[in-house]
């Protein structure tokens, strides 16, 4: 039987048309030139320098964290080099009252919101003190269950809305995470409740070894926003100004009561997935790495600032030295943190009275610990 040539409805062209709407938003080109004046965010010179400072400091933090992990002085660590614009320019668009629900790679956002570096290191090592956010930092500890932070963000955002606060909830996942059910449920709940949430997908092309192309047939990840009826934006995740601009806009919309936004940042991790034995040479080519090194967010932003006379090598070296000192001091402080005991862990199970089973075990360990 002959295949009917003309379909009554051209579903393919509908798809193509939708996908064509998701173009990559960019402000700076690779040489640091402004290519989109309309999107240029309204940042003072001091703010521009501050953003660059955070990015440089965090690059050093990544380098040192990898080294400290190799020396056995840090535990779980998910490298961040390459994602500075995606992580720090997005969080730079936040206010102190905003609530952050990070994934496991999103420690830098917490640090710049006020989590002491010592605590970040303790979190890496596996110490409960590392998860105790200071009172002025509205955030959860990094989430290990990929997607859980998305459904929780819908809840935090609804809570902020019910409280009438001028604040948003922001969360981050990776490209692989956009395949999770909780990813969809999270953005859909936030949409249904018109909650002030910003959902960021940091698309670094790989979920451990699985390339982005194996996650979905969708041309972009931002277009997943269409499924729940919220705006979706693809942004050059190696472009600090573009990331800042779209996050700021999403925040303004959320605060104005217009609901959530999904932002896909096109980014890259120069290092392995985590320091727990992942070897990216098994699945990535050096050509690919080199291609993304050309897009390094620091290089591009540095050129932009240098052209404005706001940055120079001396300044950068100062930041690098400062970072190294901060890190040294924090590791020292982390080393001096008292070791955990089982009785402490028992105390952390219930905010109310301990149930009898736990209380009995608590007494046993208290006794052991007193010896």
């Amino acid at each position, binding site marked *: 039987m002959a295949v009917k040539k003309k379909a009554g409805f051209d579903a393919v062209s509908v798809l193509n048309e939708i996908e064509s709407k998701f173009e990559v938003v960019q402000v700076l080109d690779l040489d640091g030139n402004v290519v989109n004046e309309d999107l240029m965010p309204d940042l003072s010179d001091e703010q521009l320098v501050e953003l660059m400072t955070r990015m440089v400091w965090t690059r050093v933090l990544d380098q040192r964290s990898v080294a400290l992990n190799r020396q056995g002085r840090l535990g779980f660590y998910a490298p961040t080099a390459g994602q500075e614009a995606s992580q720090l320019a997005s969080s730079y668009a936040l206010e102190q009252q905003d*609530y952050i629900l990070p994934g496991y790679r999103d420690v830098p956002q917490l640090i710049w919101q006020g989590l002491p570096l010592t605590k970040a290191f303790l979190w890496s090592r596996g110490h*409960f*003190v*590392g*998860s*105790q*956010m200071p009172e002025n930092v509205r955030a*959860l*500890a990094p989430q290990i*269950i990929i997607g*859980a932070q*998305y*459904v*929780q*963000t*819908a*809840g*935090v*955002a*609804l*809570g*902020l809305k*019910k*409280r009438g606060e001028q604040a948003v*909830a922001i969360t981050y996942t990776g490209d692989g995470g956009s395949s999770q*059910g*909780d990813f969809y*449920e*999270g953005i*859909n*709940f936030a949409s*249904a409740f018109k909650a002030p949430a910003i959902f960021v997908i940091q698309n670094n092309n790989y979920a451990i070894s699985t390339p982005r192309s194996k996650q979905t047939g969708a041309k972009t990840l931002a277009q997943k926003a269409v499924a729940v009826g919220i705006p979706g934006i693809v942004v050059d995740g190696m472009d600090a100004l573009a990331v800042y601009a779209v996050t700021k806009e999403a925040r303004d919309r959320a605060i104005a009561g217009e609901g959530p936004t999904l932002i896909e940042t096109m980014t890259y991790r120069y290092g392995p997935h985590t320091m727990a034995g992942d070897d990216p040479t098994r699945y990535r080519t050096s050509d690919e790495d080199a291609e993304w090194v050309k897009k390094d967010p620091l290089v591009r932003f540095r050129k932009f600032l240098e052209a404005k006379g706001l940055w120079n090598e001396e300044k950068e070296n100062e930041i690098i030295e400062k970072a190294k000192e901060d890190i040294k001091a924090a590791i020292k402080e982390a080393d001096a943190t008292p070791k955990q005991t089982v009785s402490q*862990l028992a*105390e*952390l*199970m*219930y*905010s*109310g009275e301990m*149930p*009898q*089973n*736990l209380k009995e075990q608590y007494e046993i360990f208290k006794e052991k610990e007193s010896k």
Partner: protein
Amino acid sequence: MAQMTMIQAITNALQTELKNDENVLVFGEDVGVNGGVFRATEGLQKEFGEDRVFDTPLAESGIGGLAVGLSLTGFRPVMEIQFFGFVFEVFDSLAAQLSRQYFRSGGTKTAPVVIRSPFGGGVHTPELHADNLEGLVAQTPGLKVVIPSNPYDAKGLLISAIRDNDPVVYLEHMKLYRSFREEVPEEEYTVEIGKAAVKQEGTDLSIITYGAMVQESMKAAEQLSKDGHSVEVIDLRTVQPLDIDTIIGSVEKTGRVLVVQEAQKQAGIGANVVSEISERAILSLEAPIGRVSAPDTCYPFTQAENVWLPNVNDIVTEAKKVLEF
């Protein structure tokens, strides 16, 4: 005092707490204008508004995430899972998130959340509505699991659960929703979580049970008394944590035990009760601990419920084995 069914007592408890504390929020699938598929939230949205009592999209995991997030902003969520067989969709929120919120934040964030959900057999529900899955949540550090067996306890335990600053799974047996009425005070009162109730005192045998099996056990005790056996019936009310003192006190008195649950033998919490007694009161035992539970198959197709679910006859038979050992 008023005569209430268990479901009315539950509605009454929710109403009491919605009135008492503006942070209490009730939400789930069809709990709003519809008043819930069992009418447990009947009239609450009308009385307290859509801000306090509201429907959600059909996604259990999303509901769990909503509860986590709302608790982080100072609310006291009372979320409903329409049937506990659907808990698998939201298991991460329960067993990996809410249960760990206080712990993983180093004691800086609490999760004052109640997870209400109907379960239980005998009312011919379709697949995965009636399954007894309390054993799964009872195995999760950080969760408390409450199962009332009558209207009075249902109200007092639910008020306690809502006021608890840690997460409580509150399971409502569907067969008990409207099976009988009982005097329930109109004013607020609490029943302590983690405390069992001695439903009937006895000296020859302790039957330790919960949920719909409490009534079956009471019937069995009555039958056994006709043969001259004095049976003590203990309603656990909270299956995690267990009320060890009440259990052991009873066992030391009677020397014989029968643990009764509706769940399959490999599930539920019966094995935990048995092991606690073995550890703590083995020298008091005059016979091996008996158990009544369902067969280790999937929950039955509707028409097989009557031959599959444990009932009064099973309890009497097993009780006699323990008594005559």
